[in-house]
């Protein structure tokens, strides 16, 4: 479980996050939704240690990420898998080398063990045929899947996904969502997804948090979200004409 308490962050005097608190349960896909510039990505970066919050703490199974010794922090980092928005694959390495990279850097596994693990992860995301290709030779959707394979190669306890559907067609988006949900349930991972994709919200949002101008305005499950009476969330959800008509 991940718990965030009173997270605040400001850049050049501008408050981006205003005392956000939440809990994210193990084995669930937790979604953080909101419009552009509401602080979703900053919150994610605060959680994974890329941006230090001005106030508040982040607890990983009770271990305070920002107030623990370096070794504990390092061990928490090694339990994290992160899927970045653009995949963040290393351009100079093949798909296989990208997935193997955390194993090479952080483990003492034998080459055979690494090969098996990489093959398993690539097979899990359906990319065993693309192992020898370079990131520049694969599509956006494939890059995301390689990113997922790299994120799960170390058997993470926590999986973070920053807008996993951005730039993808609806069909590929659904496949990525399903893959993330399957992996979350299969390995009992605490998954946190930043998104503003309504399909993801309705399909895989087991626990949803809505951010608006740095504040948490709503929290709940996908079956309740359409019944909300929070005006900002209603505006966000039904910004699409089709959905608005369906609601009416």
């Amino acid at each position: 479980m991940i718990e965030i308490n009173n997270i605040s962050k400001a850049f050049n005097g501008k408050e981006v996050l205003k005392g956000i608190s939440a809990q994210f349960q193990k084995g669930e896909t937790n979604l953080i939704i909101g419009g552009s510039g509401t602080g979703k990505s900053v919150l994610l970066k605060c959680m994974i240690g890329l941006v230090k919050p001005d106030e508040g703490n982040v607890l990983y199974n009770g271990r305070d990420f920002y107030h623990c010794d370096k070794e504990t922090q390092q061990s928490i980092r090694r339990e994290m898998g992160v899927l970045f928005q653009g995949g963040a694959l290393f351009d100079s390495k093949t798909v296989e080398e990208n997935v193997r990279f955390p194993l090479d850097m952080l483990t003492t596994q034998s080459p055979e063990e690494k090969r098996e693990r990489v093959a398993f992860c690539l097979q899990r995301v359906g990319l065993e045929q693309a192992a020898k290709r370079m990131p520049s030779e694969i599509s956006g959707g494939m890059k995301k899947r390689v990113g997922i394979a790299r994120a799960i190669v170390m058997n993470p306890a926590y999986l973070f996904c920053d807008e996993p559907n951005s730039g993808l067609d609806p069909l590929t988006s659904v496949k990525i969502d399903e893959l993330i949900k399957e992996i979350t349930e299969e390995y009992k991972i605490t998954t946190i997804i930043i998104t503003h994709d309504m399909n993801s919200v309705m399909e895989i949002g087991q626990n949803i948090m809505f951010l608006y101008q740095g504040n948490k305005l709503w929290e709940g499950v996908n079956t309740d979200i359409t019944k909300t009476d929070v005006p900002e969330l209603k505006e966000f959800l039904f910004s699409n004409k089709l959905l608005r008509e369906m609601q009416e």
Partner: protein
Amino acid sequence: MSVIGKYFIFLGTLFGKGEKLSVYWRRLMEECVGIGVSSIFIVAIVSTFIGAVSCIQTAYNLVSPIIPISTVALIVRDMEILELAPTITCIVLAGKVGSNIASELGTMRITEQIDALEVMGINSSSYLVLPKVVAAMLTFPMLVIFSAFLGILGGYLAGTLTGVITERDYLYGIRDSFVPYNIFFMCVKPFVFGFLIASISSFKGFFTSGGALEVGKASTQAVTNSCISILVADYLLAQLLL
């Protein structure tokens, strides 16, 4: 001042928590090829022509009958060893290697590849930058020795082929009044310049934020700042070591 402070803090992070030695060795070899071996062609072309031009222009200016013609070769040799090979070669390398390093790291930064390393708990500056700095410090002196050799050879070819100096005079000139210490001085310079170019360019690239435009700016600043630092260090080294 804050930028200089940030630069020194950045240098400190290179020696922070490191990774396995085998990882660094592999990275160092990759960088030696990327920084050193891939620069051989441009260094060869520039050095040969600079040596050739130095010989022709020195001969053109040295018209006094009381100065032996072999002095042309002596001047070409000392110019190459003391200044042209180390400084001009490193300025050329600042353009080639410096812009390459800054744009590579800048692109890695804006495409979140550096963030990916940090999230894994890898010391990104040490993993990415330290091998580049060490590779530059190792390969630049070798490139400069190669450059000095080709510069003197270029002078020989230009001088003898155009007839401004005979082969015998040139060979006598390059051996006349030779000071071995100058070779040491020639090797110290690229060692220092390699450190400056690689570290400054890495610094500029590593802290890029924004998009493609900022990567371009970082690359330009890396070359400009590296060239200025080379010229300042060149003066200081000459003052200290000669």
